């Protein structure tokens, strides 16, 4: 992979990691647990 390719990959990994951490923190918040307790949290 080129240096530019590695740069894009690293940037995507950092942004993606930050988004995942943000999302997981919200998933595990008390509000989410209330939503989860509804039993319809996922409307699959």
């Amino acid at each position, binding site marked *: 992979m080129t240096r530019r390719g590695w740069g894009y990959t690293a940037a995507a990994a950092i942004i993606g990691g930050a988004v*995942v951490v*943000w999302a997981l923190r*919200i998933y*595990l918040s008390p509000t*989410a647990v209330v939503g989860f*307790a*509804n039993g319809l*949290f*996922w409307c*699959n």
Partner: protein
Amino acid sequence: MRASHPNAESVGTPAGADAGLHATRRALVILVFSSVILTLSMGIRHSFGLFLQPMTTDLGWGRESFALAIAVQNLVWGASQPFFGWFADRHGARRVLLVGGLFYAAGVALMASAATPAAYTLAAGLLVGLGLGGTTFAVILGVVGRAYPPAKQANAFAVVTAAGSFGQFILVPVAMGLIGGTGWYQALLIFALAAAVIMPLAMGATRNDQQTNDLGPAQSTGAALRQAFSHKGFWLLTGGFFACGFQLLFIAAHLPAYLVDKGLDPKAGMLALALIGLFNIFGSFFLGRLGLRYRRKYILSIIYFARTLVIAAFLLVPVSTWSVALFGAAMGFLWLGTVPLTNGILARIFGTRYMSMLFGITFFSHQLGSFLGGWLGGWVFDLTHSYDIAWTALLGVGLVAALINLPIDEQPAPLPAVPQ
């Protein structure tokens, strides 16, 4: 005999190389627009459960009203996919995506202003169900399948399915933030606007729909249906997909209650659902890409078998936060990898000319499985005060699905004889 991909003949010359590069970029643009559409369409619906408590509390409705609307939505979604798929195959996906986006946006906006449970069922059940039918897998995978030559389809299907999984994972916390920050009413209106964005995105996703690739044999709708219905592999694939829906909805709907019954903190169950969502992104992509290297029916069979093993292991070990987290991660990885593989097998056997319609039919089977998995799980629990029978059914269904995928003949189906 099938024509080769238009790019294949011309790449040997500089002009051909330019044309090949142009076609690759064109396909990439279609893939990006399609991925964003699926991120929105799958993600928005995934967050609806979060609206249950604030809406029912504010409006004084019973939860069954909300649950009925969601059940209707799932059935309408499944039942409408073959028809939307057929229309997209025959007349192009653009109009289907535009109408689907309109239904979706109108449905979500009307959910916000529904004054009675019946109006809510009409909005969230019928309109959003139709919106989903027009903007999700069957139509989008058809668009993507037609943009790529057969050798690159598995990769493209994997990317677009992973985008849908990403939407499911990421729009749930977004919905929570919006409900917490602006209230459920404004949150729904913002989601209605997001659904409306599908319409302009559709213009980009369908710039060259039906023109970019080998579509498979020229045939009428009736001939395509007869060909599929007389192919044993089509029914086996459809049966396997029923099992997929049955397993997933049971877990999504009943795992929370099961874990609480086992004395676990609700936060452990929340962790499992979050991990299912997260690992689903990687699983859809990785398992879909395996279709490039290995026979797709074997990977499908392994997925169903692996699900059965994971469920059995989860039931055999003592339930703890760790076992729940591991279960969530493993099941998440195996969650939607079936979609690109099932679609890939259909494209290989029948070509992409009627792929949206055929996938729509298999997806209807998936939705029937979902409906039964969710409903029977509750029915059996009410009857026996235990989920044991339902878990056993999940294991059995998984094993059957693993086995019935094995005899599928993945070779392109021969064209039916045409009378002279």
